[in-house]
């Protein structure tokens, strides 16, 4: 250590290389190439989520249970990630839960501002038995409605009891969007 300290007059990195450009300098570069990939994908939902989406159409949330360790996965997987055995047993779970976390988005996927902010979060579903520790739980990522930005900022929303607000049956398509959002249970009523 002592030997390093004696020659500590240097300062690294010395003269880091490269040239940063301003936005307008970039546009003026000769030979600038613009390329837009034309790709389109059709994703199969697979075994477990295929059943999950079918059941959403019926207004039900389901999970899958591992026959070896007993974990209940929501959303369901077709295998247990700890035992890697097939989890063939599908179980219906309540469509109620508590809010684990929630945020207010002012921007879209593409980064543009939204005209009306959207509240989204994680709902910890009322399913005992996902795991024996508190770290893991059955839950979904979704929108929250009937909740104000003030509820999010004050922290009132954390731990709030909520229930899935379903689309009318004729409008359901077997999509996570068959649930419109999660809204507070009446006991927690909107102010």
């Amino acid at each position, binding site marked *: *250590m002592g030997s*390093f*300290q004696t*020659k*500590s007059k*240097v*300062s*690294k*990195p*010395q*003269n*880091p*290389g*490269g*040239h*940063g*450009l301003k*936005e307008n*300098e970039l546009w003026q570069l000769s030979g600038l190439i613009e*390329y837009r990939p034309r790709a389109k*994908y059709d*994703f199969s939902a*697979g075994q477990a989520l295929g059943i999950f*989406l079918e059941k959403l159409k019926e207004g039900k949330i389901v999970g899958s249970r591992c026959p070896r360790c007993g974990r209940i*996965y929501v*959303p369901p997987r077709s295998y247990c*990630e700890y035992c890697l055995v097939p989890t063939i047993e599908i179980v219906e779970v309540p469509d109620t839960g508590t809010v*684990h*976390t*929630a*945020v*207010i*988005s*002012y*921007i*879209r*996927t*593409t*980064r*543009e501002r939204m005209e009306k902010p959207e509240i*989204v*979060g*994680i709902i910890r579903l009322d399913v005992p038995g*996902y795991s024996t520790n*508190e*770290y*893991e*739980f*059955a*839950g*979904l*990522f*979704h929108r929250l409605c009937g909740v104000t*930005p003030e509820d*999010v*900022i004050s*922290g009132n929303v*954390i731990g709030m009891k909520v229930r899935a607000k379903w689309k009318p049956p004729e409008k359901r398509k077997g999509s*996570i*969007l068959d649930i419109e959002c999660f809204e507070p249970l009446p006991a927690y009523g909107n102010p």
Partner: protein
Amino acid sequence: MKVNLQVKDRVAVIGAGLTLFRRRMLETPKELSALAVQQALDEAGLTLKDIDCVVLGTAPDAFDGMHFNGEYLADGAGATNKPMVRVYVGGGTGVMVPIAAWWHVASGHCDTVLAVSEEKMSPARPHPQYVFAYIWDPILERPLQPNLIWIFAMEMRRYMAKCGASKRDIAYVSVKNKKNALDHPSAQAAANITADDVLNSETLVWPVNRLDISPVSDGAAALVFASEKIARRMTDTRVWVEGTGWILDNTHWYNRELAYPRYVEQAARMAYRMAGVEKPSKEIDVVEPYDPFDYKELHHLEGLLIAPKCQAWRLANEGYFDRDGEVPSSPSGGLLGVGNPIAAAGTMKTAEIYWQLTYQAGARQVKKPVEKGVAQAWGDLMQVGTVIVMGV
């Protein structure tokens, strides 16, 4: 007590190189890699023909807009006709590259290894955030049209709720790191700002404001690793890799407690066990935790067992992690200050520990004497912890 693998060779870092980190670099990804490699070789006193093997890292191909990005970068990274491998664990890549370089030498397969990380985020339009749309699950998540920042905001909100931290408490990290970066020659987002500036910057996804986040960056970083025999022959300015750890959690982030990164703790324990570190909060002199967002540095200081759970924000605001504090954290200026070219950012942090431990950090040199340091990176859907312990 050190618990080690069957390591054939003790491994040293003997040189490091960095490009500028900027929003838009003129240079191509290959050219950026070459600039970083040239510096690292110069520092180590080696030429390319002295290099046995190359490990390189770059994050999602979609940023550079090149598939096979590893193979594309290979010649710029000095890998032509050499054994080369690309490692990839999202944002965790930047420290995974040094870890992989370590195992190449430790296994006895290579005496000298170039570790090179590169990222060019700026080409993606309309904004690199849009390219991140491809990391979300297509069935359950993309229909909700998420922005990448949502997941960070959800994690930060949960940390605030569970640990009692306010936005202002967390903003301190951004203030500290941007200030530290004023002394970093590569820095893109160095600034003297206050917590009010952070709180008054544009709210993107509450609780995340623009100045809570590191910038969009291009850049490259490189390190030279060598076996003990070569290291002792070549240079006095070397540090030893004492421990490495890497852990991957699952992608089901909505099924997990977001207030604490258990995968970082597991990776840290793996590295500490190897290094014989028993009390990290006492034995680690300087730390470079991954800070793409200000709260993430706090999260990671806790996962690294340097701060007790839910206490990092409190210690930070007491100056504990300042450059002249008890355990200086991100003395480089971090991703918030130096910039965040994804894979290159974690390697920049590893380079900073090397420079700190060899007293070559100039104005960034921390005040206390340093003998042991840790660099850490994080990545993907709240999943990856990569940790390297280095010592003199």
